[in-house]
């Protein structure tokens, strides 16, 4: 089994022979890919066109509104990227919403006390710490992550409330608020850069690294992965730690955007994030996932929230419409 290093040449040759598109289509057929795997993109475009047509008088298509959608979705997108890893590995993290609350509080306190760098570090460290604790309880005591993170959701919420005395903490550091929230570079809000950076990195690591492969293997069949030499518990810990870290970053972005911190920040976000990730084609049972899909799942949820408000639906109608759209999209998605 000598490994030949001339593979690149050979592959290029092959593609020249058959044509790049033909080769991609052939691979897709072999992978047994169906349109269902792309339902999030179809749904996104469909929903976008629907709002563009019905709401063209209400300013839906204005640059401002569109940028706003992406801005408001940034925190969900960041967490969705991490949740893609978690679900793909066959785990789940219900604590992220609560972690956002706690991390935003610690960030605001640290920014006020010691400045930007410390604030960001403390925020991320808080998230990572909670993620790490979740992770070790998950693998050390072999408790399903659903239960571990359901429990820590409560503990962390309580902690956030206690630490902040249930009071909002304003952030007066304008540089912090610019970098992590309201600022723009040219016409483009910084939050879009944050989103792009996290999605790009997340996608690259997911599809191109050994870690990504091992995450999918662990979620696809943990026994077979273990028998093939994957340290499945280490992978499980890593994804839960990553999820905590991602929630920490989301908390920093929340604090920047809203110029303050509050223990309720992020409350209920875990459900939006999981919905976005599953909309994006990631299996709730592990083994299959897509980071780019998760981004579009998040954007679709943002689009929905925005469009439904512009349509003049009241809060109760929005909630119901959102539920119906999510069920439709998931029903049309890949069959498990």
């Amino acid at each position: 089994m000598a490994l030949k290093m001339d593979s690149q040449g050979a592959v290029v040759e092959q593609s020249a022979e058959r044509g790049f598109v033909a080769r991609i289509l052939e691979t897709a057929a072999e992978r047994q890919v169906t349109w269902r795997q792309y339902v999030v993109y179809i749904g996104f475009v469909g929903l976008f066109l629907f709002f563009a047509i019905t709401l063209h008088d209400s300013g839906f298509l204005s640059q401002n509104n569109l940028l706003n959608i992406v801005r408001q979705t940034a925190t969900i997108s960041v967490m969705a990227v991490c949740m893609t890893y978690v679900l793909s590995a066959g785990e789940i993290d219900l604590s992220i919403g609560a972690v956002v609350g706690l991390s935003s509080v610690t960030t605001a306190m640290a920014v006020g006390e010691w400045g930007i760098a410390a604030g960001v570090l403390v925020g991320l460290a808080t998230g990572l710490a909670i993620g790490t604790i979740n992770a070790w309880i998950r693998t050390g005591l072999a408790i399903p992550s659903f239960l571990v993170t359901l429990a820590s959701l409560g503990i962390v919420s309580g902690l956030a409330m206690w630490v902040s005395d249930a009071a909002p903490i304003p952030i007066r550091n304008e540089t912090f608020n610019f970098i992590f929230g309201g600022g723009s570079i040219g016409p483009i809000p910084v939050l879009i850069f944050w989103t792009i950076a996290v999605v790009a990195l997340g996608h690259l690591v997911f599809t191109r690294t050994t870690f990504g492969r091992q995450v999918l293997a662990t979620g696809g069949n943990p026994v077979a992965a273990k028998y093939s030499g994957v340290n499945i518990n280490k992978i499980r810990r890593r994804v839960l730690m990553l999820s905590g870290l991602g929630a920490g970053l989301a908390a920093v972005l929340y604090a920047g955007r809203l110029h303050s911190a509050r223990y309720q920040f992020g409350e209920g976000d875990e459900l939006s994030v999981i919905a976005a990730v599953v909309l994006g084609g990631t299996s709730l049972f592990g083994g299959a996932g897509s980071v780019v899909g998760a981004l579009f799942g998040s954007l679709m949820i943002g689009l929905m929230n925005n469009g439904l408000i512009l349509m003049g639906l009241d809060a109760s109608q929005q909630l119901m419409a959102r539920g119906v759209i999510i069920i439709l999209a998931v029903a049309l998605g890949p069959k498990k």
Partner: protein
Amino acid sequence: MSGSVPAVQVTNVTKSFGDTHALKGVDFEVAPGEVHALLGENGAGKSTLLKIIQGVYQPDGGEVRIFGEQVKTFTPDEMFRLGVSMIFQEFSLIPTLSVADNIFLGRETKGRFGLSDRAAMRKRTRELFDEIGIKVNPRASAESLSTGYKQLVEVAKAVARDARVLIMDEPTASLAEREVELLFSLMETLKRRGVAVIYVSHRMEEIFQVSDRITVLRDGRRMTTTGASDITGPELVRHIVGREVAAFSWVPRTVDRTGRPRLDVRGLSAANGPFDVDLTVHPGEIVGVTGLMGSGRSRLARALAGLADGVTGEIRLDGESVKVGDPIAAIDSGIALVPEDRRTQGLIGIHSIRANASLPVVSRFSSGGFLRDRELTRSVQDVVERLDLRPPKIWRPVGNLSGGNQQKVVIAKWLLRDSKALILDEVTAGIDIGTKTEIVRLMRELADAGKSIVVVSSEAGELLAMADRIVIMNRGRVASTMSREELQAAVDPGASEAEQQSQMQHALEARVQGLSTVRAGS
């Protein structure tokens, strides 16, 4: 096999899927009270025919009659109404319900107020069990039963629903020896009641033991239908494969045992067995490991690969000590396990051939954590071609491949990894005879290339074809070892090759059984 109406009569049935002609005019007949074995390689049309009889597929042409009644609508419900029942490989019992509840699932006996009358159901279950001679407590929960008893209950459930045609697909695949006997005696009882059984298995010995007649399909055509006593094993294999196969005869190879052993195991134990096992395997040597179900064969295999709890003892590979009880250390040192159950332990069904085969080696194809994708693809392609995996489409998910191809993917992992010692647990189970041959040949090639191979198997024929020496396990310990010379000594030199083969097989089986009974009595 009287002149009565056949239970199943399939006449000139054809079925195509796109360009693939799965059945090209097949006749097939099963009499009431008959066990009829249906054989063929993967792709021969066996499962298409079975699915037509179950009502999953509609035939393109020809006709199907069940007890004389021509089938017009092919749906599972209709076939069920006519009396056709499938005994599933993966059991359809609900684990948390009692046996009686399972038997009556979906058609509960109603008592007063429309509530289900569980006492009556238990009583009828007990009566049914007495009638067909199975000893299971109707109150027991299904999950508390062993695999064998689950299978018996499964059959009883079909009988309770007036099944007159039973389809059994590899029913013994996961049963212990004693459980197989129970199943066979239940089949005898059912035969007396006039139930027709269509029996699918890759295990030759069983086929001859239980079936009255045998039908062989190949390439969508019926090759033969014959009485089980009118045909020999090799003839049958020839019909199945369509060519002369020497898979299961021994090919002499020379092994140099003078050098340092490749795999040197001393006092290997684990919490639930094995206990205190010594084993040496030289480069180029194939060692067989056998024993009855529960003897610790598979646990030994897993312990060697670091996949058992509480492993102690010493394993050396090429003189280097290997940390025991750590699967990653075992793999890193060059020990590889092809596990017993490829679906649950060997493969990730929803992932591609490429992803599965490369899983143990992803880190070798990475720089700074990032995969060198093209190189990896190329290597997987090479190994897939070498193993003659058909079709060699490496992006295809492994879940839908045939058993033989799936097993090749599991083997591909360790060829890519270039493991030095391969441990294969029931490597040919549930695989068609053609692929079995290929795997046996591959093992010899790998041994000749200097690898050390441990073949754990319950099939004497397979061991005799490959192993230079056979270790027999009993109660987690090595009970005996049979060398090639000893096996040869059991053979009458004047006999034909086939007879010699069966003499050796008997010698080995006698040793295995003998050891077990002696111990069990003491």
